């Protein structure tokens, strides 16, 4: 009996460890996460319109069909980005996600209070490297600090009436994200 006890316990402990490690790493190794799906829409650091979700196909699950969306899949490793989003007469929001789909910042047209939401997206290192006098003029400029070099900017615009859909889509197409400098 004793000869089996030790291997059994060792096996259980090993199994437990493997389980914990797999569970914790799964979000990072899953190939079909939101970032991977959105990155297929086009090159990074460019705003891409997200095709409307239908029962047959959707870029991401659980999208809200009342909204039109566009994304900028970003990579800040070579330069910071300027993000410009024209607001619409209705609800417009800009949400920021890390490479692993964690929402770290969001604002909407009311919070921004301007006809165009304009902000600079950069890493902590890029922000620290800003010249001092730039920091002062930055007071009227919105700076968003990304915790990861890669991530996703998701732009959502509400379509209150179906008839307005194409007009709103045209406005959304004016959104841009482009490297600074």
């Amino acid at each position, binding site marked *: 009996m004793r000869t089996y006890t030790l291997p059994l316990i060792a096996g259980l402990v090993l199994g437990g460890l493997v389980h914990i490690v797999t*569970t*914790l790493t*799964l*979000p990072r190794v*899953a190939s*079909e*996460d*939101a970032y*991977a*799906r959105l990155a297929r829409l086009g090159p990074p650091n460019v705003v891409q319109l997200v095709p409307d*979700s*239908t*029962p*047959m196909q*959707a870029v*991401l*699950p*659980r999208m*809200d*069909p*009342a909204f039109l969306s566009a994304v900028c899949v970003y990579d800040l490793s070579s330069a910071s980005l300027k993000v410009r989003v024209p607001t619409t007469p*209705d*609800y417009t*929001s800009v*949400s*920021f*996600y890390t490479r*692993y*789909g*964690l*929402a*770290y*910042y*969001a*604002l*909407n047209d*009311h*919070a921004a209070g301007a006809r165009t939401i304009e902000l600079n997206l950069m890493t902590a290192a890029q922000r620290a490297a800003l010249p001092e006098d730039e920091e002062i003029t930055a007071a009227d400029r919105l700076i968003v600090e990304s915790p990861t070099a890669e991530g*996703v900017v*998701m732009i*959502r615009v*509400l379509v*209150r*009436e179906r008839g307005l859909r194409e007009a709103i889509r045209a406005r959304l197409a004016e959104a841009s994200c482009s490297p600074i400098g």
Partner: protein
Amino acid sequence: MRGRRSRAGELPLGLGDGLAFIATADDSGTQLDGRCDIHIEGRLPLARFWTLTVYDPRGRLIDNVAERYGYNSAEVVWRPDATMEIVLAPRARGGNWIPTAGRDRLVAILRLYDAPVGFGSRSGDNADLPAIRQEFCQ
């Protein structure tokens, strides 16, 4: 939870954007079944805009000829007392109806956009969420 979301490929709403309430069961704890009449009824929390959308368990919209996947605060028909009722059912009916195509499992998501701050941090009083009950299962 985060692991499950990432694997499913969803980008959940950020708090500065809106709040999402996800229902997979009715008030008695029974799974939402698209072969039943599912009544979602009552008041809704204060928000600039809300949407209620129905999905299958994999997060896809439910196919139907009307292309009706949900309701929002601008198009729903309210009652005079500021309450509303949305019915999820397999067969067409009057009022605020969302077709379920008779799917056995459904997920209903209520999203509040530009909801007051503090609501999400649970510091406020209990949210006015609508009741969910199912009847006439086929």
